[in-house]
């Protein structure tokens, strides 16, 4: 187990470096550099920047030096000092802006993951046991619809329905009185009350996929000899089902976290924009549109890093659950 853990940790290092390079590349994409944008922004506001500060900033980001030096200055600032650069639009350090939004993004993604499991596990089992029954067809069809509707469209339709027929908006994650309030028990409850809409919107596609996987895996196992043996020995159907084939078929639930999690974080970005949730999505889009590149790049990097870490944790869980994985 320890060897596996170390190996996985070592594999993660190149991934993290690659993520940071890609993010830095995205920051560099728009024409011009940090300082010319800053000077232009200040000039637009009628301010002049004094040359001493300009030199200090140029030095800090290594702007007159080769690109890898700039990269190194940027990444070492993040790793050693937690300094993600400066947001032009907000005129604040990026690190002040991202953490709460990243946290909420992950609360949303993880609760959706749990929701997805809670729905797809029983549905998948039912679909497999009662193969080709009417409910199986209904579940399969609904699953396909869930796959086919883009998340943002579902969010739009939900918003439209609640606006038109219930005359209320479903956007946001908090009631107005809690938005600026510090964290408390009642704020957490309020969050849960708002969380279900984006959770359903985000969860549909993943649920559909997992139902298919669960059904297929269970179907493979249902007719294996060990099931027949257990049945011949007089085990009750329910106990037989839950104790053996379901346990085997459960493996993919944990192992698919590796691709479900990136999908959820990715989907959360766009759903949050439509439902205007205080997660990373809307701020990222705004940062990209106004070319606030340090903010945008930091979001993209941290979302990816946290996803990779989440996948790593799920891999450890899987290795702990299923000893075969460790020795592969």
């Amino acid at each position, binding site marked *: 187990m320890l060897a596996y853990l170390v190996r996985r940790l070592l594999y993660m290092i190149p*991934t993290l470096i690659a993520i940071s390079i890609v993010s830095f590349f995205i920051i560099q994409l728009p024409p011009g550099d940090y300082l010319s944008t800053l000077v232009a922004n200040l000039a637009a506001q009628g301010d002049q920047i004094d040359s001493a500060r300009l030199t200090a900033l140029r030095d800090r980001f290594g702007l007159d030096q080769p690109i890898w030096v700039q990269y190194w200055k940027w990444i070492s600032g993040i790793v050693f000092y937690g300094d993600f650069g400066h947001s032009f639009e907000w005129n604040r350090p990026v690190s002040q802006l991202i953490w709460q939004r990243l946290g909420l993004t992950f609360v949303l993604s993880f609760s959706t993951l749990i929701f997805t499991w809670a729905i797809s596990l029983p549905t998948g089992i039912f679909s497999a046991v009662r193969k080709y029954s009417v409910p199986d067809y209904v579940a399969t069809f609904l699953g396909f619809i869930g796959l086919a509707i883009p998340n943002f469209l579902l969010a739009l339709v939900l918003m439209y329905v609640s606006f038109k027929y219930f005359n209320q908006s479903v956007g946001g994650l908090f009631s107005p009185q809690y938005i600026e309030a510090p964290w408390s028990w009642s704020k957490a409850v309020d969050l849960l009350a708002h969380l279900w809409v984006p959770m359903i919107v985000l969860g549909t596609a993943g649920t559909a996929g997992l139902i298919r996987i669960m059904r297929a895996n269970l179907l493979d196992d249902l007719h294996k000899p060990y099931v027949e043996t257990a049945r011949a020995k007089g085990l009750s159907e329910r106990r037989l089902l839950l104790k053996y084939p379901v346990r085997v078929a459960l493996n993919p639930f944990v192992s698919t976290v590796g691709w479900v999690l990136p999908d959820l*974080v990715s989907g959360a970005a766009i759903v949050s924009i439509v439902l205007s949730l205080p997660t990373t999505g809307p701020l990222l889009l705004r940062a990209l549109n106004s070319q606030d590149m340090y903010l945008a790049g930091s979001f993209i990097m941290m979302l990816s890093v946290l996803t990779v870490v989440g996948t790593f944790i799920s891999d450890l869980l899987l290795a702990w659950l299923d000893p075969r994985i460790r020795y592969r």
Partner: protein
Amino acid sequence: MVDETVNPTVPAAEHEQPVEVAGYWKLVWWKFRKHRLAVVGGVVTLLIYLVAAFAEFLAPWPPAEVHSRYTYAPPQPIRFQSRTEEGRSPGLYVNGYDVQIDREAFRRTFVVDPDLVVPVRFFARGEPYRLLGLIPFDRHLFGPVDPSQPMYLLGADRLGRDVLSRTIHGARISMSIGLVGVSMSLVLGLVLGGVSGYFGGAIDNIIQRVVEFLRSIPTIPLWMGLAAAIPLAWPPLRVYFVITLLLSLIGWTGLAREVRGRFFALKTEDFVTAARLDGVSEARIILRHMMPSFSSHIIASVTLAIPTMILAETSLSFLGIGLRSPVVSWGVLLQEAQNIRSVATAPWLFWPGVAVVIAVLALNFLGDGLRDAADPYST
């Protein structure tokens, strides 16, 4: 191959069942045919591509035709009149609008006026165009007899453009971006997956790490970051290609995995070893011996990859960082539906979304059926 071996215990050829002599592709076709939903999905997919090809003919109006008089005009149902009365000849018609201006809200309200009759017909004369880009033509499948009269079967948008015509024209970009994007990822997937699976070892390890890396990062934020860097001044066609390129740069991983898996499975098969012992070159083994036996799997994966591309394009364009108007794609059209208030007054703006769902659903069913049929020997 397998289908040519005659079982020696069967005495004469006339007892052979058709299934025993059928070739691989025939078996695939039989198995596919049994999957009803997949067949329906295939037919619908074909229809959508036909719609995309003949968009000018099928759409009553050009997609960009603006009628400021009819902003947010509601859909008109088609009616049929059988008798001749008051000088009207029998035929199809739609009711015209009675436009009232709400002085307080400064908004136009449309009331369908049953007395106003706009006769419509098949093969109506309209805006001239070139069919398939070649043949000059001015007939449209369906339209008002008098082209100056309004006809909005699915309503009008903010600028009084016909939602139906725009949705039909949008099929062209949205459906083709799937095809072009998937072809690009197929090339990448075949080459990298093939190299990875065929040679194995260190190359395989590197390519697999790259695949894992690309799969482990959330795609939409990454796409957003890359797409936002496309300069606003670029011509639409170039934006289209860059967006497709971005989609396929990240989308090839699934195909590469499939190809690699197939190569690994086939590498140790007897017929590959036999070919190698015969002194067949590596390239020929790959192209003539291995490729044919997994091409059906590749076709299935490709079909399943197209809807993902379509959804990705739609999402990006919806956010305003993919394709931009004047280009007409389903995602661009759905941008109109972004504002909840405009959707509340004009729910017909959702029609392009319905088109997306139908297209993705059809392609998914088709792909699912193809995947099942790709293994015709398993039951």
